[in-house]
């Protein structure tokens, strides 16, 4: 290679590298925008709401006196709603995911279900609220209850659970299946003894991400009309007399964290804004924690994958 050709190459590289550097900077800046947004958002809430976070805040009912107001009914409500959400979405989502991935024959029906699931994932949450209002509240007569809210959010996260189930199943290599079939297992044995257990971490990741989305959902809950003053807890699901289970709570009125926050922000007294910030902070921390668990699970999964 002649020296002048080499020089030419070098000057081209120099130009190319300048673009490279500029883009790297742009990328870094873009990242910083995201990070800064988060830091400001979090910092704002922290600065405003920090003082209100103490044990009483968790054990007090909402009150007209900002200083006494707490989130007891809100977090218990969120917990119970999430329970219904989980109990409806997890089995349904896993079953549907297993069906689509392992059983579904290739026909129009399957195509329909698949397209449908992808579409549902893109339906705005407020539309689920309308569904709940029209079907659960008025047609089924569940009223503005924990059951209504839980089922609504359950349907909302169903596509997430289905998709993550399918992805987790797809990640299991075909030769694991063949190994199991090879020793004479039936399809259901393969699914229940192998596929679902091995897919569990992946499915859980999806479930938790779905739940963390559900717990912060405000619009559909507002739509079913759950904006109320609730200074009591729903009946306990567990009783001390047989049959030890009680389902009255399903039909109880309720409030949830984002609604409580929303409620407080619309109070005239300035002091309630502090409560709202504190509730928001806790809500964000709850979702962050759930997301963190999901991310950690996925990380573990990626590390321990050994087939």
């Amino acid at each position, binding site marked *: 290679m002649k020296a002048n050709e080499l020089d030419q190459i070098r000057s081209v590289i120099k130009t190319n590298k300048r673009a490279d550097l500029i883009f790297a900077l742009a990328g870094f800046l873009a990242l910083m925008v995201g990070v800064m947004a988060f830091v400001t958002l979090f910092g704002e809430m922290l600065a405003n709401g920090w003082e209100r976070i103490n044990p009483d805040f968790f054990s007090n009912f909402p009150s007209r006196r900002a200083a006494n107001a707490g989130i007891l009914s809100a977090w218990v409500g969120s917990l119970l709603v999430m329970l219904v959400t989980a109990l409806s979405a997890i089995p349904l989502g896993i079953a549907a995911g297993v069906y689509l991935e392992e059983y579904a*024959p*290739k026909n129009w029906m399957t195509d329909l279900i698949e397209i449908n699931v992808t579409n549902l994932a893109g339906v705005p949450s407020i539309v689920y609220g309308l569904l709940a209002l029209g079907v659960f509240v008025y047609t089924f007569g569940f009223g503005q209850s924990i059951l209504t809210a839980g089922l609504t959010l359950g349907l909302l996260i169903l596509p997430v659970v289905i998709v993550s189930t399918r992805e987790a199943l797809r990640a299991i*290599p075909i*030769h*694991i*299946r*063949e*190994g*199991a*079939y*090879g*020793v*004479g*297992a*039936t399809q259901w*044995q393969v699914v229940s*003894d*192998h596929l679902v257990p*091995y897919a569990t971490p992946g499915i859980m990741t999806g479930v938790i991400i779905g739940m963390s989305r559900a717990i912060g959902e405000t619009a559909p809950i507002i739509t079913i009309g759950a904006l109320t003053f609730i200074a009591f807890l729903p009946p306990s699901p567990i009783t001390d007399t047989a049959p030890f289970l009680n389902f009255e709570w399903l039909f109880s009125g309720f409030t949830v964290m984002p609604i409580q926050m929303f409620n407080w922000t619309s109070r005239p007294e300035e002091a309630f804004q502090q409560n709202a910030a504190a509730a928001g902070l806790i809500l964000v921390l709850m979702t962050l924690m759930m997301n963190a668990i999901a991310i950690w699970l996925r990380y573990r999964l990626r590390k321990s994958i*050994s*087939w």
Partner: protein
Amino acid sequence: MSTTEQNLPVKAFTRDFNFYYGSFHALKSINLPVIEKHVTALIGPSGCGKSTLLRSFNRMHDLYPGNRYQGEIVLNPDNTNILDTRVDPIEVRMRVGMVFQKPNPFPKSIYENVAYGLRVRGEKSRSMLDDKIEDALRGASLWNEVKDRLNQPATALSGGQQQRLCIARCLATDPELLLFDEPTSALDPIATANIEELVTQLRDRVTILIVTHNMQQAARVSHYTAYMYLGEVVEYGITDEVFLRPKKKETEDYITGRFG
């Protein structure tokens, strides 16, 4: 019991067996005997249909849509055509075990891996399980290496150990016919030697059909060899004959490395 010309018992054979992946005719009129308690090797260039034929013996193709069998694969002593619609593929797989190219232990404990076939058959007695598992692991020359860590995950074993575990998994259920699909191609030379050694031990106990792309291996472990090409069995015979005095030009070309 049917026998070959030399009056050896035939464990299984195919008769005018054809196989189609959808419209692709992958196997053409295969007539192949598998002699009992001997090793039969399938050799041939990549894509010639070795795996396809092997997998037909335990109806592995049933798992995927669009595949089609035609003709017969008969399993002795009961002279059952395992392709018959009345025959349950699960039953076939309970009688015919398979070891795959890549070791595929389940991500469970070593114990549970070997126990799985027995559990599928409804075996619950712990002592019975313990016994059979020990036997199977001994049969796969793995017992000494794992006896102290039966509850550890199988995936922690080395590749060669995993493959022997997969063999143990099959042995535990006493298969009548054992299928091997290039069982050493993912293994290092030492592990390969171990598996070959194991196959030579097993051949007096079970009937074995093995696919290999390594001709030396075929020569070392098998009694009979079938050379396949483009979905057909071009030549079949006693291994030494096939390797030293191939009857067909294609076989010779392949064996001498002039092709493939």
